[in-house]
């Protein structure tokens, strides 16, 4: 029975020779994740199960990132529930404020997720790790509780859509623009219950950071997971973050896909997702100079070092427009530090942007940049639902870091090429060999 890449990982973790779409399986979990919103609920449920210990204290990460650093007394109490639990069970990968980062940037950076592994996280953007060729998917708090107790989870084996990438991104087009245009094409339930598997010759031109951005937004198309074929770039990345052994999986050549979509990367242009769905996508140059109040550059989607480099490239020597608040949030402490070293933070501050410690913050309307009634933001985040970043009548427009930075300069929605000429694609990438351990 030929299998997709996802199916192979699931079969192996279920101890089965093969699986097929629709089959219910129970699989061994390599790693479990929770944050300050979902883990407190999971901890309450875990305690109801009545087991004395977690399945493996080295395979659980607890990250206070959503409302942390604590925004108020209630969120402080939620974070404390998680901190106390981590202490009680000697959870190895508990990341305190000062060491924490946005979970989906942090776990790969810390080498906690490698190719072929199976990860569940009580956060919908857990699908991010598909970028490294892992199977990872978001679950709820109860699933997280069960996984922490048993080290297993139940799954319905998904079918898959295959995306064959050809060519090379050019101009200001990035992985963000690519995934936005894909979601625009297939819709917010276009991959419902299914895997999105990314393959093809164009894959080699996409940096790891771009792949993280793309896999991160698989959930926005309703997918169970997004996953990238493992290549040289993945291997170089893996050896830069961990010396742990991992197993590579590749789809069978005759694997059955529900659909194959061929994407020509050369034709991708900077995109904007208009309110209130990530699929409501238009080219940035068709946005008719829509005026804005705020720009947010950060999040689990686009808070990585390449994202900050692209934003800084545009902001350098320019000023954030009068009446616009530009907030830059490096996704992890390591990224923050790197940005300081490279002078990017200096560039942001000189341009009139606010730079924050890592947090999910404004992305989910938590804190650090909430919108008033009727205000409009361009954000490098992943969702533009009603009320997502604040008041129910506020609006969020999703874009790449380059586009968002260009909008901050202009004061309205604009294609980045109107502000600055694009450098060659790949300019902002950190070669894997240079990556800090």
């Amino acid at each position, binding site marked *: 029975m030929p299998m997709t890449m996802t199916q192979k990982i699931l079969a192996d973790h279920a*101890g089965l020779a093969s699986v097929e779409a629709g089959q219910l399986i*129970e699989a*061994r979990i390599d790693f479990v994740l929770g944050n300050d*919103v979902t883990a407190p609920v999971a901890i309450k449920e875990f305690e109801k199960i009545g087991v004395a210990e977690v399945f493996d204290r080295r395979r659980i990460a607890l990250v206070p990132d959503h409302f942390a650093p604590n925004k108020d007394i209630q969120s402080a109490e939620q974070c404390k529930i998680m901190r106390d639990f981590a202490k009680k069970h000697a959870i190895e990968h508990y990341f305190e404020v000062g060491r924490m980062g946005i979970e989906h940037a942090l776990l790969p950076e810390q080498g906690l997720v490698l190719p072929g592994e199976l990860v569940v996280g*009580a956060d*919908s953007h857990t699908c991010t790790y598909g970028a490294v060729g892992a199977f990872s998917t978001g*679950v709820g708090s109860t699933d997280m509780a069960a996984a922490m107790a048993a*080290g*297993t989870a139940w799954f319905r084996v998904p079918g898959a859509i295959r995306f064959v990438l050809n060519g090379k991104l050019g101009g200001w087009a990035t992985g963000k623009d690519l995934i936005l245009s894909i979601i625009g094409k297939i819709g917010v339930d276009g991959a419902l219950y299914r895997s999105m598997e990314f393959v093809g010759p164009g894959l080699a031109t996409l940096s790891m950071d771009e792949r993280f951005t793309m896999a991160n937004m698989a959930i926005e198309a309703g997918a*169970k997971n997004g996953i990238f074929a493992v290549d040289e770039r993945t291997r170089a990345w893996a050896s830069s973050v961990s010396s742990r052994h991992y197993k590579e999986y590749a789809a069978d050549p005759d694997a059955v896909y529900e659909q194959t979509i061929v994407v020509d990367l050369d034709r991708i242009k900077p995109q904007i997702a208009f309110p209130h769905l990530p699929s409501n996508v238009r080219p940035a140059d068709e946005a008719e100079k829509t005026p804005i109040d705020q720009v947010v550059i950060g999040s689990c989607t686009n808070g990585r070092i390449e994202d900050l480099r692209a934003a800084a490239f545009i902001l350098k020597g320019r000023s954030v427009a009068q009446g616009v608040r530009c907030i830059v949030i490096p996704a992890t402490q390591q990224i923050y530090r790197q940005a300081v070293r490279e002078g990017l933070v200096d560039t942001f501050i000189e341009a009139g942007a606010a730079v924050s410690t890592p947090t999910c913050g404004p992305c989910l309307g938590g804190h650090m940049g909430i919108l008033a009634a009727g205000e409009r933001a361009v954000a490098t985040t992943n969702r533009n639902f009603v009320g997502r970043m604040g008041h129910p009548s506020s609006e969020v427009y999703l874009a790449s870091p380059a586009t968002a930075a260009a909008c901050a300069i202009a004061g309205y929605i604009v294609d980045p090429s109107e502000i600055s000429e694009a450098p060659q694609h790949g300019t902002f990438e950190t070669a894997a060999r240079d990556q800090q351990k």
Partner: protein
Amino acid sequence: MQQGSKAWKYGDNVDTDVIVPARYLTTSDPAELAAHCMEDLDPDFASQVAQGDIIVAGENFGYGSSREHAPIAIKASGVSCVIAASFARIFYRNAINIGLPILECPQAAMETQHGDMLSVDFESGEIRNLTRGIQYRAAPFPPFVRDIMAAGGLIPYIRQKLLDSADHPFGVQKVEVHLDGEHEEAGTKEK
């Protein structure tokens, strides 16, 4: 059962952020969450919903976040069932896991109007629109999912399995675990 339950009708892609906005996620208290249920989509819902009422919606209900607070808020507001043309997958799992009854039935989702009186039989998956005199049958859940629902959710289910038997928690054949490198040194717990 005789008089049925009132339907609250919504469209496609009802997302988790309108079911419970993130500004209320600093608590996990069901009653507090229920007080803000559907707030950004339908400000009247939380104050007017009655015990046993049913939410009927279009495609991709529960789209977005993994927040279990969403089905918890719906359940705590007294809603007895959500009927939709389709569900977002994490919401689907969460609803099953916390014991919020859900039914996938595109025809019923399309034809039901706001305020219609419905009655639902979960055993058979039968949905009756008493106002219009129409009957539907939702796709039944797989037996494994029905077991979780019958136990009252995943926690009672797994508790029973973990504490009462040496078998693997989900009753599937025991898996031989092979691990390499650091993970093995870290001491994977043998069942």
